[in-house]
């Protein structure tokens, strides 16, 4: 059952997966290829900065990959009105669990692309003894971020369905309105700031998205 679910998800998503894997593989190579001729003879700080650029690019690619796989994966059933999925002898939990697990397995492909591309990119540079490349950590963080991004869109699609776009839009409006809320409600600002700090730091829900993303560091 799971094998076939994985196969269907792969076949439906393979174009996007190929695209993201290609981009994740080439981004470190291209960024370093562009930057290398401009590096000085002794460039530790510049290397750290360029490593950061690679990291941010990988972060964006990973999040986009996770969100795309979740949005598209829902689409394969949406296209046929969910009739086939509903006619199978599975509970909702089993069906969604297998879909989510399949997507999580598929997202390891772009993460592998990150790792291989980063290893090759870092290999082009003569790093000073005080600097190290973090291809493995970057790929690991990319995988975790892709999974979390996937989970958010997956939950939105499978619980809100056709109303997902409306929910997303309402969320965006809500977050944007927080600034006004902090002025209107006394004491709201410190609560909102503390809540935001929890959300974006480890072990908050979005801690993996924030923090340091870099290929080259001390």
């Amino acid at each position: 059952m799971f094998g076939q679910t994985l196969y269907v998800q792969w076949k439906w998503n393979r174009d996007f997966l190929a695209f993201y894997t290609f981009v994740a593989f080439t981004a470190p190579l291209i960024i370093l290829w562009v930057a290398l001729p401009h590096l000085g003879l002794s460039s530790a700080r510049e290397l750290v900065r360029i490593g950061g650029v690679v990291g941010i690019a990988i972060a964006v690619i990973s999040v986009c990959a996770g969100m795309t796989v979740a949005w598209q994966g829902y689409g394969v059933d949406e296209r046929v009105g969910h009739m086939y999925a509903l006619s199978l002898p599975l509970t909702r939990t089993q069906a969604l669990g297998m879909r989510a697990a399949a997507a999580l397995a598929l997202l390891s492909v772009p993460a592998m692309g990150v790792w291989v591309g980063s290893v090759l990119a870092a290999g082009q540079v003569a790093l000073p003894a005080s600097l190290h490349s973090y291809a493995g950590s970057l790929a690991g963080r990319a995988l975790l971020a892709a999974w979390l991004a996937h989970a958010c869109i997956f939950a939105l699609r499978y619980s809100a369905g056709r109303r997902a776009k409306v929910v997303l839009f309402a969320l965006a409006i809500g977050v944007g309105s927080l600034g006004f809320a902090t002025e209107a409600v006394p004491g709201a600002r410190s609560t909102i700031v503390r809540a935001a700090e929890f959300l974006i730091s480890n072990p908050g829900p979005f801690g993996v998205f924030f923090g340091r993303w870099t290929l080259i560091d001390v």
Partner: protein
Amino acid sequence: MTHAISIDDLSYRAGRHFAIRDLRMRVPNGSVYGFLGPNGSGKTTTLRLLLGMLPPGDGTITVLGHDVPRGAHHALARIGYVPERLHLYPMLTVAETMRHHASFYPTWSATEAERLRRTFDLRDEQRVGRLSKGEAGKLMMLLALAVRPELLVLDEPTDGLDPVVRRDVLAALLDYVSAYGATVLVSSHLVHEQERICDWIGVMDGGRLVAEMPMHAFRSGIKRLRIAGAPPQATPAPFGILARRAGPGREEEWVVRDWRDDMMSWFASGDASLREVVDLDLEESFVETLRAARDAGGRAA
């Protein structure tokens, strides 16, 4: 258990204008139950409700002994379902679709599936999204039959298919039923097709089941009578009067159900005289049943 499907007091509302109300339905084990009704009467909705695809508003549904929707996944493991439109993943090939479907059903018969694939002349490498309507219909029937189900739920399985394909599909269905004695619930508005294969009939109209009886009773029990001198108010009769219409002169035309020949003697005891008994085919019986149900609904409103 004597019924493969039991529905009691089922209610469901979709939007402001469509509702299923107080539906009561029994599909006997081993029967081929024809589910007749005009477009928009609620047939497909009823099928989806009993498969657990839609949440009922009220009432109980039991399919193969399992409560639906709570135990729907248990029932679905023993059901072969063919929907009215292609519901398969378009990017898979025929072979991939068969493999995918097989993985969810322990009762899948690979040999039966292969035999049907050859019978229906489907190629392994054909993409589902590129199949013709007829090929898609055959593939859906193949998947439903290869599971070797105890219950087949077919929603307009031959709608839009050419006569050759329709014949192949029905032949495969009847072969399976005669070999395994499965129960079949087939929804259609093609009355003549239902007449050939069904032994029970249920007529749906406006979200209500207006008639449910064995096919022979439906076919033979509905007659058109030519009456002369009929009283304005008919005294209680042993048959059901579906409609009374004015005929030429002082004659009236009655459409009745549950008619038997020995009921002619009822006219001898009264002022009315029976001039003629006309047999109705299934389509005419179906139309008169619907008309009567709508008239009764209008009078009640």
